[in-house]
């Protein structure tokens, strides 16, 4: 069953050529990685405790990051898109800043705020004896800090494009703002939430600089896949390559499974 397509002519070379270059640019390093990987080692390495711990840690911290983004980032995006308040523009700009911060700088900022001698961290330590660095919680915090701007931007974009008109319609029908959010806004921005979650998840999975600066690097508690790979680069490059491959395969697998159902924007 062939679908009738409009006779618009062949795509112009002026567009195809750069597109082809971009494709090669993006695909070549991945192909090279696949070719260079000692595949025989892969299964064996997958069985080592270090790799399993790192995989597990990456999995739970990235999922926790997405959860945090959904619970805290969605209301923030809604506030920025739907409510007018003094300083909104400033807040919007500040929320985006972690996006452009080099990850290590983000880590330094987190230490300044939440480290044992930090602005809030110091108080936490003095009052409750609770210290954030070197804990898995710290890893999640670092991930959420760098991933949330992606999420908020995606969701705020979705909120702007679905329009506030439906909010007015719901109000004329007698709905409170919370009911409107729950029954009208949220279902309509679902694709945006999914896209934002995917972005946040991906950023969290690859996060390294802020994590190692703020949370540390220790197998089982704070050593995520990227940290493990960097550590192994110090010693055995082949092992580092193989572990990179594992991370790549897992990521592609998850994205492929999600792609058709969630990432497609209607």
């Amino acid at each position, binding site marked *: 069953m062939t679908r009738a397509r409009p006779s618009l002519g062949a795509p112009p070379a002026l567009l195809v050529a750069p597109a082809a270059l971009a494709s090669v640019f993006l695909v070549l390093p991945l192909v090279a990685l696949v070719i260079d990987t000692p595949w025989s080692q892969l299964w064996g390495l997958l069985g080592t405790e270090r790799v399993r711990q790192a995989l597990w840690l990456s999995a739970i911290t990235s999922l926790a990051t997405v959860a945090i983004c959904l619970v805290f980032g969605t209301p923030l995006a809604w506030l920025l898109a739907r409510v007018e308040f003094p300083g909104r523009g400033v807040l919007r700009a500040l929320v985006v800043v972690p996006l452009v911060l080099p990850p290590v700088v983000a880590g330094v900022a987190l230490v300044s705020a939440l480290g044992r001698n930090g602005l809030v961290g110091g108080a936490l330590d003095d009052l409750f004896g609770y210290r954030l660095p070197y804990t898995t919680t710290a890893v999640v915090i670092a991930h959420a800090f760098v991933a949330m701007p992606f999420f908020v931007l995606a969701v705020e974009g979705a909120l702007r494009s679905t329009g506030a*008109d*439906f909010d*007015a*319609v*719901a*109000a*004329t*029908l*007698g*709905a*409170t703002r919370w*009911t409107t959010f729950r*029954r*009208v806004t949220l*279902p*309509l921005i679902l694709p945006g939430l999914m896209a934002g979650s995917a972005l946040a998840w991906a950023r969290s999975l690859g996060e390294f600089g802020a994590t190692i600066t703020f949370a540390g690097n220790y197998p089982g508690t704070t050593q995520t896949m990227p940290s493990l790979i960097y550590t192994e680069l110090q010693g055995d490059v082949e092992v580092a390559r193989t572990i990179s491959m594992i991370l790549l395969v897992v990521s592609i697998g998850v994205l492929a499974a999600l792609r058709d159902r969630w990432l497609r924007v209607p």
Partner: protein
Amino acid sequence: MAAGPVTGPPVPGLRVDVDVPGRLRAAFEVPRGSVVAVLGPNGAGKSTLLHAVAGLLGDIGAVAVDGETWSAAGSTSRLVRERRIGMAFQGQSLFPHLSAEANVAFGPRSRGVDASAARAVAADWLTRFGVADLAARRPGQLSGGQAQRVSLARALATDPQLLLLDEPFSGLDIGVATSLRLELGEHLAAFAGTTLLVTHDALDAFTLADTVLVIDDGEVAQLGAPADVAARPLTEHVARLVGLNVLREGAQLTSFRPDAVTVSLARPEGSARLQWSGRVLSTAPHGDALRARVETSTGADLLADVTPAAAVELGLAAGREVWLSVKATSVQQYSAAPTPSATPSGTP
């Protein structure tokens, strides 16, 4: 409230005295149960009036419905969701992710009715509009006419005090619009509250409404019964709508029908005040006659009806230089009353 004879003047169904800066300045009142057709050219402020009364434009003046103050200058106005309004928007604005039934049930549910009772109310209203079989369909699967019916059902399902309809027939096929107009007429007759119906169509005004409110350039230009407005239009827009020629000098208006106009090539005899020279802009069939639109040297456009035979004789076509004249006996003269405003009778 104690039973017994009602004393004092009847409470108006809708009293409005609003000022939306730069867009609309309107003050009027109508009795309860009125169906008010809001006429006027594009951008005059018709939809603005609806949005203002609904509370969607914030604090803009005084609005009182059935004697209850919804907003008043100097005090906080009632929130949109606390006003018992049923609003049908231009383009329907049905929730795209909910079925037709869920859309109609949304109002009752939001006001605290439980899910199954709300569904029953929705099913009832969909039946009344003849679209019960579309209950499970999403708005994307409905035709224009069907969506408009669902939209109207949704507005009425909340049992409102005030019905606000924004161009309910725009974008519909003539046949669909006609049947929908008839149905809406029946529903409006059964509706106890007041209705504001914004429309471009004179037919809507004269078949559905008992009051016509003309808005022009952000001001109320005329308020009256349809027959009065049609016979003595105060604005060119309404004159065009009802097919009348209207000329205005200050507060004096002169109106005459197109079929009272005589078209000639040579300058006619008679009163110079009722003669105009001009150039034909366009011609179109109108019933048995040919209606010509003529741009006169005074700047005003006039309509003139001629028989097809006369048209041929005159060589009537766009660009033709002609003279128009009308007999003094065929002309109506009237003055524009001051803009109708609400004189508060009783407490606001």
